[in-house]
């Protein structure tokens, strides 16, 4: 049986160099966005989703675990941060820490349950767990049910960074994104990441080599959930609300779609995919329900003809690891 990412190239000094060059180029391009007059809100939103998709990709692309419930981290961390900032009046950096820590705790609990089954069952379990949380948030008083938490104050980060100024907010989000991205990048290229890849390729053999694969999978799950939660906390300051949409399974599906379009198991694919899907939603907002149909068509087309994704195809063509 061919794995999801059977043609990833082995890590090599050249691959590392290529990836660093692309990373620097990406960072520079993103840093000059405010000077170009591109609508910064769109880029900020895309950056949050890009980090989320990267966190998701850490699990599927490098651990072989397809989580169909990653929206639970996005939405939960969003609720925690929003509640802390709005009701308790804490500063943004404390709010982000609370949201991210909450997502980490959630990752420990849901990871402990879901890694007990592999493959297709893992996907179904994560989906069911996120639906469980959805119903809990629907009824819990602090989330304000269908209304969500609205009008969240952006406040001053570290006493000086006024997040209500779009340019400052943009650079805070950008720094958060780059830090999260580098952490994932570093994890993938660490000994830990190599063990994860070996579990993806052949779990039985990894076990026979003496690795406690369950612990590695749990660690990867917690890390992925925490980073996804961090993205969710950042997004609160961009969107200034936290609502049930962010916990719903359609959101989990969108995360999967972003990563699939960009390329499962590629380093930069999720970023490209997130920008494409968010842009598509912006431009097609007037088409109502047809957006869902178009997303479905992209899913089908990607799975049938385009399984490497955009970045994966480019990398495959030039025989480079991206």
């Amino acid at each position, binding site marked *: 049986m061919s794995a999801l990412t059977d043609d990833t190239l082995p890590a090599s000094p050249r691959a590392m160099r290529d990836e660093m060059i692309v990373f620097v180029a990406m960072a520079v391009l993103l840093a000059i966005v405010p000077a170009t007059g591109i609508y910064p809100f769109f880029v900020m939103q895309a950056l949050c989703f890009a980090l989320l998709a990267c966190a998701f990709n850490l699990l599927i692309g490098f651990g072989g675990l397809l989580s169909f419930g990653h929206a639970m981290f996005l939405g939960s961390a969003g609720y925690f941060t929003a509640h802390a900032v709005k009701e308790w009046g804490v500063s943004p950096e404390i709010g982000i820490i609370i949201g991210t820590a909450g997502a980490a705790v959630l990752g420990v609990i849901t990871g402990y*349950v879901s890694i007990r089954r592999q493959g297709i*069952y893992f996907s*179904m379990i994560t989906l069911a*767990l996120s639906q469980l949380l959805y119903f809990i948030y629907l009824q819990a008083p602090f989330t304000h049910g269908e209304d969500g938490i609205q009008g969240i104050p952006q406040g001053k980060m570290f006493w000086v960074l006024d997040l209500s100024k779009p340019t400052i907010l943009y650079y805070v989000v950008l720094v958060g994104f780059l830090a999260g991205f580098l952490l994932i990048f570093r994890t993938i290229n660490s000994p830990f990441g190599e063990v994860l890849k070996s579990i993806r390729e052949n779990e039985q053999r990894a076990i026979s080599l003496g690795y406690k694969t369950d612990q590695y999978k749990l660690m990867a799950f917690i890390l992925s959930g925490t980073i996804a939660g961090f993205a969710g906390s950042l997004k609160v300051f961009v969107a200034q609300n936290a609502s049930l949409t962010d916990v719903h399974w359609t959101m989990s599906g969108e995360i999967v779609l972003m990563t699939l379009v960009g390329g499962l198991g590629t380093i930069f694919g999720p970023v490209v995919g997130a920008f494409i899907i968010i842009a598509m939603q912006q431009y097609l907002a007037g088409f109502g329900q*047809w957006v869902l149909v178009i997303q479905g068509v992209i899913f089908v087309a990607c799975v*049938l003809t385009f399984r490497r994704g955009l970045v994966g195809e480019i990398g495959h063509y030039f025989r480079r690891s991206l």
Partner: protein
Amino acid sequence: MQALYAQLLVGLINGSFYALLSLGLAVIFGMLNIINFAHGALYMMGAFTAYFLLNLFGIGYWWALLIAPIVVGIFGMILERTMLQWLAGLDHLYGLLLTFGIALIVQGVFQNYFGSSGLPYAIPDELKGGMNLGFMFLPIYRGWVVVFSLVVCLATWFLIEKTRLGAYLRAATENPTLVRAFGINVPRMITLTYGLGVGLAALAGVLSAPINQVRPLMGADLIIVVFAVVVIGGMGSIMGSIITGFALGVIEGLTKYFYPEASNTVVFVLMVLVLLIKPTGLTGRAA
């Protein structure tokens, strides 16, 4: 006590749908190695087919029970022939992603034309009214749904476990290459199996139309509950799927009576408990 019995009946009805849907999922997974995410959407198509038959052609409930599963089953077989079969040999997860995409398309198209509100579908004249059983009032249609679903489930079990066709099916699940060597057309069997699983979903859709109304998203949330049912029961055994489906429906009904706040979540909580105690699911075989 009246309310308790009423909730038990609602639980049994939901259990019938869980059983019919998880049964179809198990049959499809056995042959195709695909978790059919489109199952909820196809269930919805079954209900809509019954609605169209009645409102466009004047064909009533009884014929719809027969025609809708066949129509949706044929639609499913076309899906299998044109798309799903190309995934053979790839990772299982691609099947999940592909069928998720199909579900989005089908649900999106229906939502576009029918919005999110429910369309009414009348109970057939023969099943209107109710019976007084002494301890509770039983609406005849609801009793009919439970009994009929049970019969269909058991018939499917009989077909797969006790007939020659079922024996071929089970053999092809274990070792398709060997079964092909005996001159049996395995690809055609795979297509028919998918049609059968989808037909069961459509049948559940027709049964639910008079109870739950016909809505484009009627299957969207249901399928996630059914996934949890499948995780609890495991997909190794047909009878296991049927029993787990009905049992969880009843437990959900009891929860609605004793602690209504948890009725949405009880199946998921049970799934967590089962995973903690017996990770392979109640009926055993690990996938």
